[in-house]
């Protein structure tokens, strides 16, 4: 054990951990490594986070520029001035591998960007590869994604500054 971990560290790569990636509940069930119950509860947990952690945009065009045509949906938020907020569709989910009897990491939603549609990305834009089923991902990608439900508006400061120095 000691030597294995020493080799892993000397390779100077980020530590890898086991995880399972799926497009859908059905794909998880068909995989047969996990019970239907596990597949479903992890999907629900990822789905619940989706609206909160997905990247947010103030225009559909900006969102589609990053995630591709018809790959975005309206987020359940409004800008302060009442405008719509857009976010990419959830394209899959990541959960713990359950290997060795551990429950492992918390589930989280996955996305696919327009410039690299074969790979999954977390809500924090960590590439976790394109392989579904049990696989290895960087440990940092399994961290809980940050909430990005946040921006409801921008630009509420600056109106008075047009053409004038604020200094003195």
């Amino acid at each position, binding site marked *: 054990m000691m030597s294995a971990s020493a080799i892993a560290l000397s390779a100077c790569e980020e530590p890898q951990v086991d995880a399972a990636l799926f497009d859908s509940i059905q794909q998880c069930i068909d995989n047969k490594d996990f019970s239907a119950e596990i597949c479903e509860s992890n999907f629900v947990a990822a789905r619940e986070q989706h609206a909160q952690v997905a990247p947010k945009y103030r225009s559909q065009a900006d969102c589609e520029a990053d995630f591709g045509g018809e790959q975005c949906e309206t987020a359940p938020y409004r800008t302060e001035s009442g405008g719509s907020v857009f976010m990419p569709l959830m394209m899959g989910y990541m959960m713990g591998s359950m290997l060795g009897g551990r429950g492992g990491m918390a589930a989280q939603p996955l996305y696919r960007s327009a410039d690299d549609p074969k790979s999954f990305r977390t809500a924090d834009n960590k590439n976790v590869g394109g392989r579904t089923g049990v696989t290895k991902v960087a440990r940092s990608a399994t961290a809980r994604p940050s909430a990005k439900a*946040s*921006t*409801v508006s921008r*630009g509420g*400061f600056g*109106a008075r500054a047009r053409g004038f120095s*604020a*200094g003195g």
Partner: protein
Amino acid sequence: MQRIPVAERADWRETAREHGFDFHSIDNDPYWDESAYYRFSLRQIEEDLEGPTEELENLCFAVVERAVADQEILSRLGIPASYWEYVAQSWHNKERNLYGRLDFSYDGTAPAKLLEYNADTPTTLYESSIFQWVWLEQAMERGLVPAGADQFNSLHERLLEALPQLGVSGALHIACASDSVEDRGTIEYIEDCARQAGLNTHLLYMEDIGVDQDGRFIDLDDRIITNLFKLYPWEWILQEEYGQHVPASGVHFIEPAWKMILSNKGLMALLWEMFEGHPNLLPCYFEDDPRASALGDDYVRKPLLSREGSNIRVVQDGQVSFENDGPYGAEGHVCQALHPLSQVDGNHAMVGCWLVASQPAGMCIREDRSLVTTDDARFIPHIILD
């Protein structure tokens, strides 16, 4: 205090470029002007400027202490009633201030007279702190000024000492409005100091700030802003759309909100009311105060929130001798006794004394061809030599 013409360093523009001082000229007119310098004696600096600067800062604190407990004063200063509690809290919580600049009319002999306090958003900082010092060192090396000269300038060291004492935990966001090169240069210098002092910083524009559904301010990467140095006037912040989010945002602002009492020209009337006759103060009254008639035929009328000399009117012998247009004045005015700036060959010199963490820390001189220092003013370096 003498104004001494001197040869410019032939390579000063290259030196400015190397230092990243890129607002040394504005619309091709020089802003940095080393064709002359001012020479002061050590006594003039220590007794006439440094000492009064420290003393006046304490008088200003007495004004703030009174103002935050007096709704009539807060109303007079034009601070919206919905923010009175927030402003008072910033003072009672002892939120620390970073820097400010007192602007004086001083001729080398009579007591320096305070004209106003740039307490909230002073610029002129980088050139005072760094480029003026570089000039002194090179000018001595090249024999342009006598060897052994000194300068009233500990700005850089004081900023590095003060920044870690502000109680910033987590990252410090540093912001200004997007369309002023000078403001941008100032916050880049502040960021440089903050990093040297070990703080983790992010620069951004005020226009880029966002609000999340919990009313917290966020940057362009949706990071929550917890500490914000803003080179942006408090009165603008409170008038704009996001002002309403400020009290509940939990943001630690630098400068703190109580500084808006000091950056208001009403400060000058309040100081005179509380410390009438102080040698470094000029008679000053709110315009609608009947006592203002005591100023007679020579006075300066200033909007409470004017910047860069805008909307200033100078009255001499009952006649308007100077008037500048601009967007200010709806908030009311003060009238201050006229005390013309020291003048040599049509160059009117304003003496600015810096405070860092409320301690005197340096000086800058700006000259203007007009009676009032405006955004056309030029920065003239100084030396101390007995």
